[in-house]
């Protein structure tokens, strides 16, 4: 502690002997750290958005199907509604929400056009707990019960069919007997989502879908969210044990692109951290080496006066720690300021549909994660100090006689 009291003021004042160099280094470190932290926030938000876009539309964290359904999503691959051990797990606290669906390929026809869709029979109250689409019904209304006679279509599909709320459309499917079945539904609501979702999905009450397809009480899938994502593996094991004959998969395998996007962003942050750190380290080491070379005579003097080489090393290392510390504080502050500049999230409207291609929503919710900020700042600070140990070590190896003999 005494040594710190001796060296700290010395190190701090030495920093400001060449203010321009110090300021430049602080800027380099702070901009580097800012970019790491802001990219981390941005990519985390993007990753979260991508995940939410996937999981909050139609895909749950876990999906249960009859074997073969994912390859051939028809009524041929149907399953009974949950019962017994499976129903017990689905209604346990380990499951946040679940819904049974009928989901089959179909044709929708208006008086102007015929288009392919995925007909989805839902139980509205269950669906609201799993998907954001019911809440995104902007015109008309969403389905009210499982027996609702109406149909809810995506905005783009409505436009392409040249239909509107109050008009009727005909839905055609292949039923369980392999025959073509059709039924007219009144358009009761229009939802907004990504272009692909708007074009693909049409929602009707599950009872209507079951009677149209001849499924009776059978369903196509069960979709669920776990109460806690960390307990997902344990939940998966329990589900597989309860329904060994069914195909049970997590969103990671069902939506591999969304999962890849989310994990890629995490890895990208780490990669960016190393790239930025390498650039910063070059600047830091260069600055400190210059500072050491300019002050060789002074380090000789300190040793001549009786300062042990270890203390000389500590003094130079402290200078680096302070220098990098200033940059880290400035960089972290700048990153917090930047994130706070977007209190309502970052609107990616300017990217138009481009953002959808990588699965992101329109608005990224930027959030400062204090733990992550602290971790990355500490890593940059510690690595910077370690990089600057080399110049410090050189300073401590100065021979007093040789150093004092320098002009």
């Amino acid at each position, binding site marked *: 502690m005494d040594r710190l009291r*001796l060296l700290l003021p*010395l190190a701090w004042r*030495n920093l400001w*002997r060449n203010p321009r160099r110090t300021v430049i280094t602080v800027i380099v470190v702070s901009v580097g750290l800012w970019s790491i932290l802001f990219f981390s926030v941005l990519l985390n938000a993007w990753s979260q958005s991508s995940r939410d876009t996937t999981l909050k539309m139609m895909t749950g964290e876990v999906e249960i199907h009859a074997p073969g359904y994912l390859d051939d999503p028809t009524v041929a691959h149907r399953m009974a509604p949950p019962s017994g051990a499976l129903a017990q797990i689905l209604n346990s606290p380990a499951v946040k929400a679940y819904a049974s669906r009928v989901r089959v390929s179909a044709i929708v026809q208006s008086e102007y056009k015929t288009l392919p869709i995925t007909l989805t029979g839902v139980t509205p109250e269950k669906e609201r707990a799993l998907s954001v689409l019911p809440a995104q019904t902007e015109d008309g209304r969403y389905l009210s019960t499982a027996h609702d006679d109406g149909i809810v279509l995506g905005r783009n599909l409505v436009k392409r069919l040249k239909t509107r709320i109050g008009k009727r459309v005909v839905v055609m499917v292949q039923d369980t007997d392999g025959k073509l079945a059709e039924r007219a539904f009144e358009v009761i609501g229009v939802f907004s989502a990504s272009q692909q979702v708007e074009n693909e999905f049409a929602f009707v009450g599950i009872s209507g879908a079951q009677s149209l397809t001849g499924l009776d009480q059978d369903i196509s899938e069960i979709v669920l969210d776990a109460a806690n994502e960390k307990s997902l593996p344990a939940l998966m094991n329990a589900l597989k044990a309860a329904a060994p004959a069914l195909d049970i998969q997590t969103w990671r395998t069902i939506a591999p692109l969304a999962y890849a996007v989310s994990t890629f962003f995490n890895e990208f942050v780490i990669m960016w951290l190393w790239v930025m750190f390498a650039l910063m380290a070059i600047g830091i080491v260069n600055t400190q080496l210059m500072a050491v070379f300019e002050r060789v*005579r002074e380090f000789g003097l300190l040793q001549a006066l*009786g300062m042990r*080489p270890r203390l000389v090393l500590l003094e130079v290392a402290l200078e680096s720690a302070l220098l990098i510390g200033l940059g880290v504080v400035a960089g972290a502050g700048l990153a917090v300021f930047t994130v706070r500049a977007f209190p309502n999230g970052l609107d990616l409207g300017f990217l138009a549909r481009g953002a959808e291609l990588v699965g992101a929503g329109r608005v990224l919710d930027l959030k400062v994660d204090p733990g992550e900020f602290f971790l990355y700042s500490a890593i940059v600070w510690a690595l910077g100090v370690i990089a600057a140990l080399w110049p410090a070590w050189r300073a401590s190896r100065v021979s007093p006689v040789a150093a004092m003999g320098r002009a």
Partner: protein
Amino acid sequence: MSTIVECRGVAKRYRQGALSVDALRGLDLQIEEGDFASLAGPSGSGKTTLLNILGGLDRPSAGSVKIAGEDITKLDNNALADLRLKRIGFVFQAYNLIPVLSAVENVEFILQLLGAPPKERRARATEMLEEVALAGLDNRRPAQLSGGQQQRVAVARALASRPAIVLADEPTANLDSKTAEDLISLMSRLNESSGVTFLMATHDQRVIERTRRHIVITDGRIASDERRTRPAS
């Protein structure tokens, strides 16, 4: 009167590639407590080499060097640093103050290295600055002091830890006549009042005339060692 410095057969050989230069050739020397001695000789005679060895800044190639009875040739780098801190005060030709510290902090720095409590070291540093007639200039940085004032701070710093000996290498070389005279008087007064032992390598005749002992070194050996009871005033 005890012996502060005792050199026996001290030699120093520098190697520069295939070439070797003998800076000191079996030199014997004793400095007694309270000596006020000058060390003179032509350039390259070995004055600075001898001071460096006595100060523990360099090691002899042969021979033994004892400071206050301790053979310093056997000490490692850390022990030598401790020796310089506790037993030896340095005054250099180029002042060599720490530029980012004020006058009083420069003096205090040594005491801080020694682990003296804050109040005690500040009092001692202030006292030493008063002793060298720099009272009131405590908070000036070296760049705000004249050459003579900087050298006085260096003397105050050298004496702050109450060392066994002060080694001065050409202390007046960078000073004008008046300032040099003042510095010599100051060191002489400190020697007489506090009994501090001084050994000064110098070409300056005014310094030589004011010392009570004059050692001449030629070709790495002591050529003459003259003690004077009454130096020129």
